[in-house]
């Protein structure tokens, strides 16, 4: 055993900056009167921006690890960290007016959000089982609290409870899988795990497969893949929309990072096994997500099922089992997060004091009252459906390409057929906005702040811009697995 070595703290600089700043936000917020709550938001956004700056500052050319190889900073982590921070910034800004209208404009929302983001950043860099688990729990615990944040809402409390119980169970399953691996290999470190598993895979295939199953189940719970998806629609619907916005975007990126760290970095030796598991999960997710979404009348719930189907697509990319597939899955995840931001962002925009817009019918006739936002939401819907020239098409193209390149044409055919089914409910949103009459009492006019409108427009147009020039983002995804 080596002596105690002072760890290289530099790779963790972004996390440290974030932690320090978050504590600062927590304290400063205490002394702010309610009318100055905007300062907390400003400080939170600043925190995230500083973190992005720190990430860019410490970004290594190749990859560095620290803390006894349990923390790694590479291209993959850098790209995802920046993405998570930027998405969180948009989430914070979009949700402000909603929070004010619903009398929950409290500093805790931002503090919890920042802690959740910190957890996500740790997840992207975690290179030991323990670190992954720590990041995941920091994220989850913050999310439980955020959902229950609106104390007056019964359904939100119910959702938080449900999420907590199921989330704890999923964590337990994950931990159980981890403990078996630890028992067999004697290490928690991802790098060492890869080598030890290689040696063990001949002798103990059954035990390894057993442990792997629990890991995959735990992951599926967190990602929301069928059949471990039950929590997702209820949580999406029950949470305040500002929190749904958060849950539906950034944590997806973190979940993807966790999947890559566990399966690809650590257990690539067992790729044959987990590919088959993911295949079943992916097909089930695409099938169930797309079909059940058709029956939804609640927009948030519909988007939840839509998420499930998109998770299926992300899994397709991962199960292709090569760099090409991983980078396409990464591209898919990132663009999905951007698209979901627009969809939930528009929904938040429609909320007013005393009126909770969450049903599909609340969108009816939006083209008459607000043609611009109707166009943005339509772009988001077409992007989710994968219709060119939006970015969603390109995301699907890359995933399909990676699946076909490993000779699984039938899987690609299955995927596109389910996406045709999916097209129907996205088109229905467009139909409601463009073809239906507007209801007087519902959508009068959107009175929201200018910054939200500008950011949301940029966000929406970026779906087209990235659809026409996908290389802008794709280059980073390829680099991450280069």
């Amino acid at each position: 055993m080596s002596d105690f070595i002072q760890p290289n703290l530099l790779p963790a600089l972004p996390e440290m900056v974030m932690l320090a700043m978050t504590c600062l936000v927590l304290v400063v917020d205490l002394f702010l009167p309610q009318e100055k709550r905007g300062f907390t938001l400003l400080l939170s956004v600043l925190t995230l921006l500083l973190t992005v700056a720190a990430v860019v500052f410490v970004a290594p050319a190749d990859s560095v690890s620290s803390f006894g190889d349990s923390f790694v900073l590479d291209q993959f982590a850098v790209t995802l960290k920046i993405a998570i921070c930027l998405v969180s910034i948009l989430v914070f800004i979009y949700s402000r007016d909603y929070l004010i209208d619903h009398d929950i404009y409290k500093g805790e929302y931002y503090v919890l959000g920042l802690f959740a983001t910190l957890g996500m950043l740790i997840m992207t860099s975690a290179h030991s089982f323990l670190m992954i688990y720590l990041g995941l729990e920091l994220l989850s615990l913050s999310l439980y609290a955020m959902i229950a944040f609106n104390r007056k809402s019964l359904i939100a409390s119910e959702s938080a409870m449900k999420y907590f119980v199921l989330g704890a169970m999923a964590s337990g399953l994950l931990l159980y899988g981890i403990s078996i691996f630890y028992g067999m290999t004697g290490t928690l470190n991802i790098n060492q795990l890869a080598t030890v598993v290689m040696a063990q895979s001949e002798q103990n295939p059954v035990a390894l497969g057993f442990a792997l199953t629990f890991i995959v189940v735990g992951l599926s719970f967190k990602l929301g893949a069928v059949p471990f998806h039950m929590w997702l629609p209820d949580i999406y619907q029950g949470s305040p929309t500002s929190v749904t916005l958060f849950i539906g975007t950034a944590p997806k990126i973190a979940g993807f990072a966790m999947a890559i760290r566990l399966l690809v970095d650590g257990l690539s030796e067992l790729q044959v096994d987990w590919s088959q598991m993911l295949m079943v999960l992916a097909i089930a997710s695409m099938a169930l997500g797309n079909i059940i979404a058709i029956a939804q009348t609640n927009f948030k719930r519909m988007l939840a099922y839509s998420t499930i189907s998109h998770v299926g697509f992300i899994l397709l990319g991962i199960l292709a089992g090569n760099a090409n597939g991983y980078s396409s899955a990464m591209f898919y995840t990132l663009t999905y997060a951007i698209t979901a931001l627009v969809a939930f962002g528009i929904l938040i925009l429609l909320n007013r004091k005393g009126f909770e817009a969450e049903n599909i019918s609340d969108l009816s006739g939006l083209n008459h009252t607000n043609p611009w936002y109707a166009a943005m939401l339509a772009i988001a819907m077409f992007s989710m459906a994968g219709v060119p020239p939006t970015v969603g098409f390109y995301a699907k193209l890359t995933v399909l390409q990676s699946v076909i390149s490993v000779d699984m044409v039938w899987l690609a055919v299955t995927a596109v057929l389910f996406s045709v089914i999916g097209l129907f409910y996205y088109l229905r949103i467009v139909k409601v906005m463009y073809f239906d009459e507007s209801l007087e009492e519902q959508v009068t006019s959107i009175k929201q702040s200018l910054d939200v409108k500008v950011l949301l427009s940029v966000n929406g147009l970026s779906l087209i811009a990235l659809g026409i020039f996908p290389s802008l983002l794709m280059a980073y995804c390829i680099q991450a697995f280069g």
Partner: protein
Amino acid sequence: MYADWPLLSLVIWTPIIGGILVLFAGDKEPSGARKIALVVSIVTFLLSIPLYSQFNTDTHLVQFVERHSWIPAFNIEYFIGIDGISMPLILLTSFTTVIVVISAWEVIQYRASQYFAAFLIMEGFMIGTFSALDSILFYIFFEAMLIPMFLVIGIWGGANRIYATLKFFLYTFIGSVLMLVALIYMYNKSDGSFAIFDFHHLPLSMTEQILIFLAFLVAFAVKVPMWPVHTWLPDAHVEAPTGGSVILAAIMLKIGGYGFLRFSLPITPDASAELDWLIITMSLTAVVYIGFVALVQQDMKKLIAYSSIAHMGFVTLGFFIVFRIMDVDDAQGSALALEGGMVQMVSHGFISGAMFLCVGVMYDRMHSRQIADYGGVANTMPVFAAFMVFFAMANAGLPGTSGFVGEFMVILASFKASFWIAFLAALTLILGAAYTLWMVKRVVYGGIGNDNVKALTDINKREVLFLSLLAIAVLVLGLWPDPLVNVMHATIDNLLNHITLSKI
């Protein structure tokens, strides 16, 4: 003077950017949007004329080529160019869009800027589809044009528009996603190229060819549309506003036919030869069975929609009878069949567009498409009746009109392959005359049917303008098809040489 202009790109992007401008012009001043739209559509048409006048008819190679790297990660290129089969269709598109803009001038009051913008953007996408030589670029344009058409039918359509437009979108989408899988498969097979011409020279086994052929067939058969996947078309046509019907019939259906020539025949020649019986059967069914279906329609638009399906049956028949002719005859008969199919596409673009505009003119006055609601229109609208009868004759394939040329060429070519195929195809001359002229008889001739017809006013100058433009086109093409046929000789001959070579 045009040599160093990216002319083709201009033709694609002028209407798209113009359409966005129209969108921003908004509806506060309705005449503003439509003026911009008219200018943009005319400029686009003028820009597209050099594509014809500067076209070199001696070569089968693509011209006006622009090739730039676009998405390096997947070697997707912005690769466009035209040859003898795409160029006429591009001109047809830019011409038809001008007509559509003029025809909507006063008629569309509701959200006019969005209406005109949709058509201009759609024009750009359609021209892009015809000029794309990179298959992903093709696919992007191919799919993107669905969005404006979806909105056009859904927003300005008739009572049952939502059903019709959803059906239209879903049908087309399900066809094209399978094509996407086929394209990606060939991309992997060809070591990373999405260029259509690389696919042309890609060796493929018979099983691969058949699967790829079927994937293309689903995509293009829905678009054409061929029996039995045609059912979306009557719905979409009936519910669409006049402009939507015109674009749908005149251009969008042609993209299916174009796809067969650009993708199916050259990429999977062996499978096409193997499965030609399937297409020929489907085409003849369209010609004969759908002809009978058209006969019993009560709704004028539905009748013309069914007649479109029957006429497009000729196009696909011409394209695939080639393999039968090659077994018994030299290349000349095959070339006749392919060129006949192409002429039929262009001619049908003019005639079906004109027929839908005629119905639109009456619908604007009476708000009914039912044949039974009319009768004796000639008494109150004599000028209009003259146009309507002329276009109906063209639709029935009267010699001297463009409708005759294509049908005649295809029937003549079919005779070289088999008497019975030609016989069945020739039935259209009877059926087409029957359903078209019977409709004209009931609508235009006879005594004045009711008081509403009595109150009709004849067409105004604007309506005379667009109907005359189309009438001239139909007549010129009918009397003197050479300018059209000549531009495609080289390309068609090359295509025929290509499909005789086995790829196995």
